[in-house]
């Protein structure tokens, strides 16, 4: 029970100037720390009754070596260390994936045959929507989500940037270049860079300006509030919501639906996928987000990585089925 306050305390102390001092105290003062813990326990009666739980939780950290080291690890943002076997399995899996992608890419380049993938109705409709937007001179709004490139959800951010590049290439014949909103600073700078590069390649630099790609907000709800303004712009007839979101993406998808605009939506987060399924006509579910670059612009590398993804998924399903059967039979 006493550990319920740890995340809050860790979050506070991680950015505190005295963090180093606290870490030294927790890890290096041994009996002195224990003594302070005992004094704290003895002084509980003098503490404000509404804060007794917190006081006792802090005293427990000081009097218990294991708790003290566990809290110090949390303070240092240390995740529990993986065992050598787990790291080795991870490394082997990573290398197998890399080798498979490279081998399949080389094979496709040599044979010149591009594999065919199942049709995703949402993407076929999206390509039509882009063509229509170019013809009628309307604008496409691309929302890249909140994923920070320094966090594990960065893969969705990179996919959204790859999709942005392709979409801006597809719409470069129109008079109105796409507008881009993002919820992360680095992502917004990279999106500006992508739009600028595409404009340079397509000789449409006169249509480009830096306000086309901007940070809309730094918290998920602030971001959605900022991006809503673009969804509601009169000239925006197509919305692309790709990246990492929470359930707040419902504001964007619902606003787009109310306006009658076409929406292509995909997220790597489960709550957002559920919300998008309920609020848009044809959302991309699960790994379909990561298939987007291959469907929008198929290069041998993209096709090979999609094939590798399918192969590995089949392999994992097989391993899980065999494991379940062995467990049922009592062999494991």
């Amino acid at each position, binding site marked *: 029970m006493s550990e319920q306050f740890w995340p809050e305390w860790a979050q506070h102390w991680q950015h*505190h100037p005295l963090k180093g001092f606290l870490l030294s105290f927790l890890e290096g003062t041994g009996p002195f720390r224990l003594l302070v813990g005992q004094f704290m326990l003895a002084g509980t009666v003098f503490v404000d009754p509404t804060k007794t739980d917190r006081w006792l939780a802090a005293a427990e950290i000081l009097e218990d070596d294991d708790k003290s080291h566990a809290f110090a690890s949390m303070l240092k943002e240390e995740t529990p*260390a993986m065992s050598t076997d787990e*790291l080795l399995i*991870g*490394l082997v899996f*990573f290398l197998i*994936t*890399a080798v498979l*992608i490279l081998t399949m890419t080389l094979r496709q380049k040599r044979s010149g045959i591009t594999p065919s993938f199942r049709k995703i109705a949402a993407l076929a409709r999206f390509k039509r929507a882009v063509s229509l937007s170019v013809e009628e001179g309307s604008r496409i709004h691309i929302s890249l989500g909140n994923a*920070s490139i*320094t966090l*594990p959800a960065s*893969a*969705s951010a*990179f*996919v959204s940037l*790859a999709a942005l590049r392709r979409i801006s290439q597809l719409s470069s014949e129109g008079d109105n270049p796409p507008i881009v909103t993002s919820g992360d*600073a*680095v992502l*917004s*700078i*990279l999106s500006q*860079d*992508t739009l*600028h590069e595409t404009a340079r390649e397509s000789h449409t630099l006169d249509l480009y300006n*830096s*306000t086309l790609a*901007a*940070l809309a907000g*730094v*918290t998920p*709800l602030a971001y959605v509030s900022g991006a809503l303004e673009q969804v509601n712009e009169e000239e925006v007839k197509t919305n692309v919501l790709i990246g990492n979101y929470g*359930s*707040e993406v*419902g*504001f964007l*998808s*619902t606003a787009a*639906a109310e306006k009658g605009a076409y929406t292509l939506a995909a997220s*790597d987060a*489960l709550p957002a*996928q559920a*919300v998008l*399924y*309920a*609020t*848009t*006509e044809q959302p991309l*579910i*699960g*790994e379909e*987000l*990561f298939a987007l*670059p291959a469907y929008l612009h198929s*290069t041998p590398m993209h096709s090979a*990585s999609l094939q*590798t*993804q399918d192969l590995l*998924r089949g392999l*994992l399903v097989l391993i899980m089925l065999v494991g379940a059967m062995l467990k049922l039979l009592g062999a494991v």
Partner: protein
Amino acid sequence: MRSPLVPLFGFLVGTVILAGYFFPGSGIAVIRTPMLDWAVILSGVAGLIAIVHLIFGVHWRRLRDPERNHLFSFLIIISFLLTLAAGIFFGPTNKVYQKVVTEIQMPIEASLMAVLAITLAYSSLRLLQRQHNWMGFVFFVSVVVFLLINSGVFSYFANVPFIQPLLSGVSQVPIAGARGILIGVALGSLVTGIRIWIGSDRPYNG
């Protein structure tokens, strides 16, 4: 023409970071940690640039555009300048400053979440209008079934044989589905990471 040096540099840095992850006890970790710290510092600087761009690049420009509504841009610029000035004057760790900022931000975000709940409930009612297919029907039925299960209404039938095991078995189904989706997402993230590592996908120019 794009320089081959940039992806090569990216590949080398990526290799060092990966090696430091897979061999934590080796000397590579000594190089990896400062590299990650640099990335965090750069990300902080990018945050500053992006916010300045939002305020002075986007909203300041809108104020000068006669065809646009100026009210929100004006409010954003004023709020930003006030918060910035107070932050510089009192310091970002000042408790009163933090409390004022939090007490403004929290109620606004809580209200938005409340509005979101109503928006989603209304939108879900129109689910079958959008999804004219079997999956839409299954999704709708699943939502109703799990709302009922989680409401605790079945606790009145706890003494009926087979109800408890049946409910606990059904409760596992969404977990299995979520794991299936997450495996797909994890594999997608892995192949995307490899494409960026080897320089095939380049989210940067240069």
